[in-house]
Each structure stands twice: as structure tokens, then as C-alpha cells.
């Protein structure tokens, strides 16, 4: 059968050039934050109000507070100088929806003056429901809500109070209102087709056992991404948690909780907790270059700048398309290795400790830059995502980085693209590295596999499966599992007949 999955919700289109949501996009597109929203209407125990909102940004950072007019001017100036700019976000320094006039004045002006720039907002969610409709009137297709718990008794250990209907409310009652508003806001946005990412701060001993439940509920209510961030609570930040000696999670704890939350939902792993006035590519910050004084002196032709952005975007997209093209549309069945002979079947899997019987789990290594879609060739993967597929569950078990010592720069973040499809020593080194990582897998799903790698995989009884670039990961996994199961069952059925014949 032909496997071409069209993502009906348009999620893929919406995250395609958003550097914070698509891992691949963050190599190509830039984002900026403007700090127009100083006030906040709740208290988090990990926040010190002298600094930026710790829900979205790094604590301990003081961003430059702008008026909406200054923010618009700055955004247009940056968009003229950095044509890769695709997203403007408001994430503080307080809560954007506790400052609705300032936030919406900024959005309204940008919706009008730079309609090609997408807007996004991060909020604690308390004032989300009353603002959902107004948000939807702008160029917004992403909203981030910080939800640390869905249980008010846990909430009371994180939020001492909220400001609600002109009063301060404390304790469990406050947390219950906050949670109710957050979940209601999430549902309202999801109904309107806005993508919602949930941020959760992992606080050991408080919500570590609870976040899997949070993940399940927010996913149920329509969130598309859950980003688990570690608590940062240094005593010198002067937060309640910092002063009280609340510890941060270890890397292992964070990973374990991220995995517990990965159940059927994408977990973001490249968030950098940028400051509320960050500018540039993710992991890079050029906010120093755009001081207000300098912006005042700039004379910008906005129409020309917008045309330039359109041109740059077209170039980026063309390059991305060229990189991930090749087999235009290929059916899984036609690419699957020939059905093994009946008598060969038990030995194929037995040696590797894997069961070949129908319904047993099926392990697949996936070449995807963002987890959403299969978009990389076997020789160009930076990391393989390992999925376990059972009859009705599909689980991301882990992400294995492909370590190619000679090619990997220090940070491992800005890996040069390897365009080679199979020949050449760089690609050969990668094949060796990638092969070592898939030994325990039943199949490899990617966009392309060179001939040599194909043979090596087959020899190791691992199915090489290539699909059209852009195929949704989940759909491809389900399809691959179904095919594998059907074949396995056919072979098992065939075995007794072969024996009795």
C-alpha cells in the first residue's frame, strides 16, 4: 500500500518554520522575544520577581522592558536585519495575559505591519480563558501554558497564592482555580485549532511522581507537545525554593520523567529556556545588537524587508526540500526486504533474543529530526529515536545520538549537514556508527538508505524501510508494525503446513 499521510490538523505546517517547536527548523529560522509584559498575577515558589518569568525563561535574567511601541519598532528592525526571523514571542518578563493591554497592543500592530511573522505567547494560564478569542484574532498559532500539576494539593506546594477577581486567594483553593483556568484555556485553544505546548517544571519531591498524569491529561485535552523543564533553584536567585534548599532534579531524574511523559506524546528536548528578550537562532542571542538607541537611528524600508524575508524563506524551504527529497512516493511493501523463508524465521530472531510471534513488540529506529515526521536519510541522522510498537501502543523508548567523532563539533548542536547518500568516507563512518545503534531493533525507518547500509541491515535481520520524506512518524510506525505482524502471522501459519508437507 502507498503510505502518504496527510496531516489533517495542519500541525506540521504550523510548526515547520518555528524554531522552538521543530527541531529541524531551529537550524534555519530565528525567533525573538519582546519583554513588554512586566506584571504577574500569581506567585510561583521558583520565581523571584526581580527577574524574568521562570516559567518560560532562564531565571536570573533581567530583560529590557519595552513599551508596545518600542517592541513593534524593535521587531520590525530585527526582521529587516535578520530575514530568517519567523516568530515573535511574548513571554514576559511577567505574564503576558496579566498585561493584556500591552500584549495585545503589540500583537495588533505586528499583525498589521508584519503579517508574515507569526506570534506566540507563553502564559501561566490564569487569565487565558477570557483572552482566547482575542488571541485568535491575531497571527497566533502557538500558545505555551505552564502547567506543573493537575492536583490542587500539589499545586499548593508550588503556588502560595493567586490574584483572582480583585482578591488574593491562597493555598489549595488558589491552586484549584489556577488549574481549572489552565485546563479550560487549553481546551478552548485546542478547539480553535491553536497549537498548545505545555511546559512543566520538574520539582523533585513535589511533582516528579505526578507529571506523567499531567502529561496524560493535557494530551487528552489537546496539547500537542509537553516540555519538561528542570527546576533551577539556586539560593542566589532568592526564590522561595532557592532559599529553602529545594534541590533541582539530576539529569537522570529529568530524563526518567521525560520518558514517563513520552507516552504517545512528543517531548521537546531542545528547549533552551531563552531570556524574555532573546533574538536570533535558538541557542544564540543577539539581543545586544539591537539596543533601543540603535533602533532609533535605523531607517527601514518595511516593504523591501518583507520581500526579502519571503525570498529567504523560499530559499530555506527549497534547500530543505532538496535535502529530504528522493524516493518521491514509495510503498512500504515494495521496500520491505523479501519475505524470509518459513524455516528461516525462528533463527532470524532467536539469536537476538527477540520474539517473532504475532503481537510481540516491534522495535524500530526512526530517523526524524523533530519526532513528528520522518525526514532524514540513514546516513544523515544526528540521533535515532527508538520506538517500541505493541498491538495498540506506540512508545518512544529513547533517543540515541549518532556519535561520529570526526564530524561532531564540540556542542553537537550545529552538525554540518551530510548530504552524501552512501558513498564517501564521512557517510561510511556514519553508517558504522548508526549500525551499532540499531542492533536490537527490528527495523529502521528513514527517508533513504544507501545500498551498502541496506545490505548490512538485511544481513543483521533488521528491516530497512524508507518512506517519503515528511511522512508522519506515528502513521509510518503503525503501518510498519501492521505489515510486520501480517507477515509474521502468515509465516507462522505457513510453518506447520511446510512441516506436514
Amino acid at each position, binding site marked *: 500500500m502507498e503510505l502518504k499521510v496527510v496531516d489533517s490538523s495542519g500541525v506540521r505546517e504550523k510548526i515547520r518554520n518555528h524554531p522552538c517547536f521543530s527541531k529541524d527548523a531551529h537550524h534555519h529560522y530565528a525567533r525573538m522575544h519582546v519583554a513588554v509584559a512586566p506584571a504577574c498575577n500569581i506567585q510561583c515558589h521558583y520565581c523571584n520577581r526581580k527577574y524574568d518569568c521562570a516559567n518560560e525563561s532562564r531565571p536570573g535574567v533581567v530583560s529590557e522592558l519595552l513599551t508596545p511601541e518600542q517592541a513593534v519598532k524593535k521587531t520590525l528592525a530585527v526582521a529587516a536585519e535578520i530575514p530568517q526571523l519567523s516568530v515573535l514571542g511574548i513571554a514576559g518578563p511577567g505574564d503576558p495575559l*496579566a*498585561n493584556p493591554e500591552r500584549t495585545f497592543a503589540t500583537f495588533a500592530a505586528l499583525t498589521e505591519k508584519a503579517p508574515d511573522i507569526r506570534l506566540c505567547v507563553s502564559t501561566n494560564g490564569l487569565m487565558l480563558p477570557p483572552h482566547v478569542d482575542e488571541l485568535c484574532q491575531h497571527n497566533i498559532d502557538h500558545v505555551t501554558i505552564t502547567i506543573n500539576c493537575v492536583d490542587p494539593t500539589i499545586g499548593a506546594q508550588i503556588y502560595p*497564592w493567586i490574584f483572582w477577581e480583585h*482578591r488574593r486567594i491562597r493555598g489549595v483553593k488558589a491552586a484549584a482555580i489556577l488549574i481549572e483556568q489552565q485546563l479550560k484555556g487549553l481546551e478552548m485553544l485546542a478547539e480553535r485549532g491553536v497549537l498548545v505546548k505545555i511546559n512543566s517544571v520538574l520539582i*523533585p519531591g513535589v511533582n516528579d511522581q505526578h507529571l506523567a498524569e499531567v502529561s496524560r491529561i493535557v494530551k487528552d485535552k489537546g496539547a500537542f507537545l509537553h516540555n519538561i523543564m528542570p527546576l533551577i533553584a539556586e539560593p542566589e536567585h532568592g526564590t522561595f525554593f532557592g532559599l529553602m*534548599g*529545594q534541590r533541582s532534579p539530576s539529569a537522570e531524574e529529568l530524563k526518567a520523567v521525560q520518558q514517563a511523559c513520552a507516552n504517545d506524546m512528543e517531548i521537546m528536548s531542545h528547549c533552551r529556556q531563552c531570556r524574555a528578550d532573546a533574538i536570533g537562532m535558538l541557542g544564540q542571542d543577539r539581543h545586544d545588537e539591537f539596543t533601543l538607541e540603535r533602533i532609533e537611528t535605523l531607517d527601514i524600508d518595511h516593504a523591501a524587508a518583507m520581500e526579502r524575508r519571503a525570498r529567504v524563506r523560499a530559499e530555506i524551504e527549497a534547500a530543505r526540500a532538496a535535502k529530504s527529497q528522493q524516493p518521491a512516493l514509495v510503498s512500504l511493501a515494495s521496500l520491505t526486504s523479501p519475505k524470509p523463508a518459513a524455516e528461516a524465521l525462528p533463527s532470524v530472531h532467536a539469536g537476538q533474543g527477540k520474539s517473532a510471534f504475532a503481537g510481540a513488540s516491534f522495535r524500530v529506529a526512526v530517523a526524524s529530526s523533530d519526532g513528528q515526521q520522518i525526514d532524514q536519510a540513514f546516513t544523515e541522522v544526528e540521533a535515532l529515536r527508538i520506538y517500541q510498537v505493541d498491538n495498540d501502543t506506540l512508545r518512544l523508548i529513547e533517543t540515541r545520538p549518532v556519535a561520529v567523532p570526526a564530524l561532531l563539533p564540540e556542542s553537537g548542536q550545529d552538525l554540518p549537514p551530510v548530504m552524501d547518500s552512501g558513498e564517501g568516507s564521512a557517510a561510511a563512518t556514519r553508517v558504522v556508527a548508526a549500525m551499532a545503534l540499531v542492533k536490537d531493533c527490528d527495523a529502521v525507518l528513514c527517508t533513504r538508505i544507501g545500498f551498502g547500509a541496506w545490505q548490512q541491515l538485511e544481513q543483521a535481520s533488521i528491516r530497512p524501510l524508507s518512506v517519503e520524506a515528511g511522512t508522519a512518524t506515528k502513521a509510518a510506525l503503525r503501518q510498519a508494525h501492521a505489515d510486520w505482524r501480517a507477515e509474521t502471522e502468515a509465516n507462522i501459519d505457513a510453518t506447520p503446513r511446510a512441516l506436514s508437507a
Partner: protein
Amino acid sequence: MSYRITTDCVNCWACEPLCPQQAVLAAKPHFTIDPARCTGCEGEFAEPQCASICPIEGAILDPTGVPVNPPGSLTGIPPSAWQQTRASIQAR
């Protein structure tokens, strides 16, 4: 009879947009309340709005000079219980 902001204010802006009298001024080194304008929210709200959102204990004084949010009132932990709370939080 006006409410007052002390040097404990961290200039967080929370109170400024809420004042029905526009009496809160975003001044340096810390925010201030214009005594000629402040009505104590009398007749408008049951609680003084600035003091009901201020996140800093002791930053806002009522007209008699008493902190509206005394120590322990915002964290929910009275100073006498700090040691004990710190010990239990450190144990997590």
C-alpha cells in the same frame, strides 16, 4: 489617608495597572503611591488592589503604617516555622 510603598518594593509592576485611581507611579528607585490620588480603593473594591497583588511582604503599608502583607503572610509560612519548613524541603 493613603497606602504607601516602602523600599522593599522590587519594581515588579504588578500593582501599577490595577489601581483604579492611577495613583501608583512607576518611579525610581522604587514605585510610589500618589497620596493625593489614593483612596484606599474605598467604594470600589473590598481590598486595596495594590496590596492584594504585591508579591513582596512588607512592601505596602496601610494608612496607619502597618504592612498589609506582614512576614509569612505571602509564603504562608510564619517566620517561626521557617527552620522546620527548610528542613522538610531540603529532605526532598
